[in-house]
């Protein structure tokens, strides 16, 4: 990954761009000089890279690796990891098992490459035995993961990075900043002249080329869950990449995408994911949460 930040002036705003968490990251700064924009950009870059290094499952030198190779032995985790595990436990309970950080092992049998290579039911069953937060012994600060199970923060890592970045940037400037990590956004206050940030909700049918709606964001977060690029098709049935941890299979009749706004990116992200996991009931679920949302369904 390129280790650099770029800082350019575009459309009356400072725009910082870098790569982190396997995707493009942007921070827009309004109403500040170049030095301040650079400082804000550096803060964002450092924090995004820090979180990525600490929680990525692709690295072999961090707490996630230690946890996933603990072979059933108890591990004592640091304050930040403990807070995330507490949060994961709470979300598991609130979602009645739909949100489960131990479900990452399903990637061993599911490969969403646009082909028709579905795994066999037997293969899925074998992996299902290694999923389930209820099998994990977690008592702050000690975690005990049964052999064969894994923790994967991939579902909340980017949103966490957005919220943490916003928290740190706030000490530099508390308005006129928009953090955008690959479509998960947080706005710290509106733009300088009082106008809101204009955010387009991507049309999954025409990614990058069209939007199904625009929202005016003055403060708060936007997160999107979608299957635009990852799916399997067999016998005319489209299998989205959102897997139900309780069954091991993709959710039936899942929307193409769900976008939610909330006061934090993590909250928006969890609600968007849960919306997807509710399949045909996505709209009903999101309405019950009384949160602004957009559900896009394909043909």
């Amino acid at each position, binding site marked *: 990954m390129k280790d650099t930040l770029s800082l350019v002036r575009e459309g009356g705003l400072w725009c910082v761009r870098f790569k982190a968490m396997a995707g493009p990251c942007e921070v827009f700064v309004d109403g500040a000089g170049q030095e301040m924009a650079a400082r804000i950009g550096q803060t964002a870059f450092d924090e995004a890279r820090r979180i990525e290094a600490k929680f990525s499952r692709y690295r072999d030198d961090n707490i996630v690796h230690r946890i996933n190779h603990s072979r059933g032995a108890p591990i004592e985790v640091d*304050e930040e990891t403990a807070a995330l595990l507490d949060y994961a436990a709470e979300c598991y309970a609130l979602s009645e098992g739909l949100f489960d950080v131990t479900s990452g092992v399903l990637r061993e049998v599911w490969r969403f490459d646009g082909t028709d290579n579905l795994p066999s039911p037997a293969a899925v069953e074998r992996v299902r035995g290694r999923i389930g937060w209820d099998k994990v012994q977690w008592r702050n600060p000690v975690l005990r993961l049964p052999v064969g199970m894994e923790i994967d923060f991939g579902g909340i890592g980017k949103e966490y990075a957005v919220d943490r970045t916003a928290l740190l940037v706030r000490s530099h400037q508390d308005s006129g900043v928009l953090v955008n990590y690959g479509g998960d956004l947080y706005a710290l206050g509106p733009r300088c002249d009082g106008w809101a940030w204009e955010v387009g909700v991507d049309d999954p049918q025409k990614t990058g080329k069209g939007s199904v709606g625009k929202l005016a964001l003055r403060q708060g977060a936007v997160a999107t869950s979608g299957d635009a690029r990852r799916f399997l098709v067999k016998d005319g049935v489209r299998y989205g990449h959102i897997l139900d941890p309780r069954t091991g299979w993709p959710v039936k009749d899942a929307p193409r995408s769900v976008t939610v706004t909330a006061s*934090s990116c993590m909250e928006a992200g969890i609600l968007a994911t849960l919306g997807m996991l509710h399949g045909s*009931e996505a709209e009903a679920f999101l309405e019950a949460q009384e949160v602004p949302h957009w559900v896009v369904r394909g043909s």
Partner: protein
Amino acid sequence: MQLKRPKRIRGALTMATSTLLSSVAVAQTPTRGVEVDVSGLRYAETDRVTVNKYQVQASKALPNEDVVRVGVVYDTMTGASPNGRYRLQDDTSSSSLIVTSASGHSFEVANDQDQSADLANSVWLTRFEDQRRAASLEWERAWRRNVTTIFGAVRSTENDYLSNGANATVVVDLNDKNTTVTAGAGTSFDTVDPEGGVPKELGTLVCASTQSSWAETVPDWIDCYPSSVRYKAGEKVVQNYLVGVSQVWNPRTVLQVNYSRGEYNGYLTDPYKQISAIGQIDVSDPDVGEAGVVYEKRPSYRATNSLYFKLVHVPTKDAAHFSFRYFWDSWGIHAQTLDARMHLEFTPRFYLQPHLRLSRQSAADFFVASFDHDDAKPVYASADHRLGEQVTVTAGAKLGMTFSKDLRIGIRGEYLNQKYQGHSLPDMKGVIVQFLLTSTL
């Protein structure tokens, strides 16, 4: 498939999220580079000692978040320091007072304020030139979330002095980091080896020659035919212990209490310090003279105790620091020190720290200014003014400037005045000027 109305979980989710985001303290981005602190200090006493001290310290956070610090200090000390002896203004019998002190040269300096033959006016000063080099290494690790250990080693060498030491400290945070408990211990092995070895304690340096009428005034116990018995080197072992608690009283105030203890065993005498035996030939004759000079002798054990209280109050961006230290030891010394410092932030880039320190010390049990003819041989004796009764006032200020997050500079100036009681040493006045620089490379 849910047929019932979906539960509203949003409220609980919002709360869980804000708990998560507020519980994780703003993490310190580990220093990507090496943080370097450079300092140059000049300390000058009027007519006395001048010290130039240069210090560099580098610290780096390792990938596993341990911190390693390396420090190097280079000092030069030149000038002249009272060695405990008295020099009399009118004394013309200098031929019987040849002096070659253990470290090199002796010369006399008279206080030019008062020309009378008063004892109060002159002291012998030993001139010296010394260089000290010290290197230190420290390794800090956070083991669990709230326990940190620090291990360190220090080695220091001077022209005639060597010190090797190691220390270990444990810091534990409790009560959500509102309470911090610190415990530490250290030990060091020190050797002093002046040219020719350390002198015999209470041995005679020089005596009035038998031809002189002063000879009769020499105290009986002083051996006027000094044996030049010298020992090889003086060694001592030092152990120190520290226990402390720091408590957040309210969001703007922190209190701290520390107790530390030192145990010194071995050669604790200063090989360069002497004591005069003053004689008076005729009771009716006001003239007094130095009849002899002996080396000092201190006990081979010393236990020191220090109780320290500190209060830091931060009402706004400014801060006030107050501290009080009470010191007492097995040599009978009691000392109290009061220190006040204000941190005033004028702009985010500049701050000023005015400082005032008052300190008072009582003399050690075996402290003597000089001996008389009638004095019996003491068990221990020292005329070192640093063990005597004194009051010190220090006042100054530091100015700090932040150029960028990678560069901070400070300048400090202090004036000190030390007055001695029960001793005829004139006041010592000194000035400290220090330059500091902190940078991240």
